């Protein structure tokens, strides 16, 4: 079948601003949007620019705004979109570099700001640290994050407050705060209790809806804010 693929294109060296370009592409229902983008790039216009690597939803390269929602282009089938008309735009709220490529440096800087690494005191034991399956399960959900930015860039609170550390960074902090082996929770909670930390979340759930890994993002955020409040009490 023919699909009308509309792409919000922008080349800083040629265009005054972003503009929609329409491509008529042959597609199977089982094709993914990434396949269509490749079809355009390889058969129509090689200058179409987007990131992608793994092609099956595990590397987090190709999050973009597809039919009004943030998703991974490699993980959404044409038939799931249910329309012959597909629109593709770069992730909202992040500076566009070219076509579908956005600047992720700020996103990663926020990620780094929450101390996303295990903090322990004292030398490690000779064998593995023990952790019960229950303790391991406590933070399982947030270990799945692939830092695709679909969540952060879908958040209206982030659009309004670009300094908001954002759901992805909180998810990463959550992964350590609730790891029984970690001893850096205080420091991390202190960071997230910042003005631009968890309090910016207005429980909008766009992040949870957008997460391609099915992480309960909002829940993680609220667990962190609850932990901060608890620590205060």
């Amino acid at each position, binding site marked *: 079948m023919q699909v009308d693929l509309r792409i919000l294109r922008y080349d800083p060296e040629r265009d005054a601003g972003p503009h929609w370009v329409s491509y008529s592409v042959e597609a199977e229902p089982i094709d993914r949007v990434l396949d269509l983008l490749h079809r355009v790039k390889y058969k129509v216009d090689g200058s179409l620019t987007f990131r992608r690597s793994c092609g099956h939803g595990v590397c987090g390269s190709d999050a973009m705004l597809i039919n009004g*929602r943030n998703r991974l282009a490699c993980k959404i089938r044409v038939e799931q979109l249910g329309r012959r008309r597909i629109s593709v735009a770069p992730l909202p709220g992040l500076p566009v570099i070219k076509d579908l490529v956005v600047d992720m440096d700020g996103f990663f800087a926020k990620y780094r700001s929450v101390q996303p690494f295990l903090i322990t005191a004292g030398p490690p034991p000779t064998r593995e640290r023990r952790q019960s399956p229950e303790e391991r399960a406590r933070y399982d959900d947030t270990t799945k994050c692939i830092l695709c930015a679909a969540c952060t860039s879908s958040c209206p609170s982030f659009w309004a407050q670009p300094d908001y550390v954002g759901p992805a960074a909180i998810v990463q902090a959550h992964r350590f705060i609730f790891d029984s082996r970690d001893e850096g929770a205080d420091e991390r909670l202190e960071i997230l209790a910042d003005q631009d930390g968890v309090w910016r979340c207005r429980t909008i759930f766009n992040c949870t809806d957008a997460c391609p890994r099915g992480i309960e993002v909002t*829940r993680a955020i609220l667990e962190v804010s609850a932990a901060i409040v608890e620590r205060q009490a």
Partner: protein
Amino acid sequence: MLIRYRGQEGMLAWAFHRISGVAIWVFVIFHIVDIFLSGANPSAYDTVLQIYASPIGRIGETLLGAALLYHALNGLRIIVMDFWPVFTRYHRQLWYLNWALFMIVGLPVAFVILKPIFAV
């Protein structure tokens, strides 16, 4: 952006919450001022009261009630999730529950408030 992004229930719930919060503000300003008048200038207050009792006033009052009821119910939904994050899993259901309660409580109230318009 807000319009381009096809948010789902959570985003709608938030948008309504914000709009209703601001709307109640407007009313609160009027309301405190007019009550103040009831002490400072009772006759002026009674004139203002006529506006509240008029059909337009009653419709406005219904809308205020709706905004307040929605904001209150959804505020509670947020608070519940804040203190028991597991409920985020059911945030949609909670929202629909809100609307059910909104209807159950809101319709009779609206009926009572609006009845005099038709009674005249």
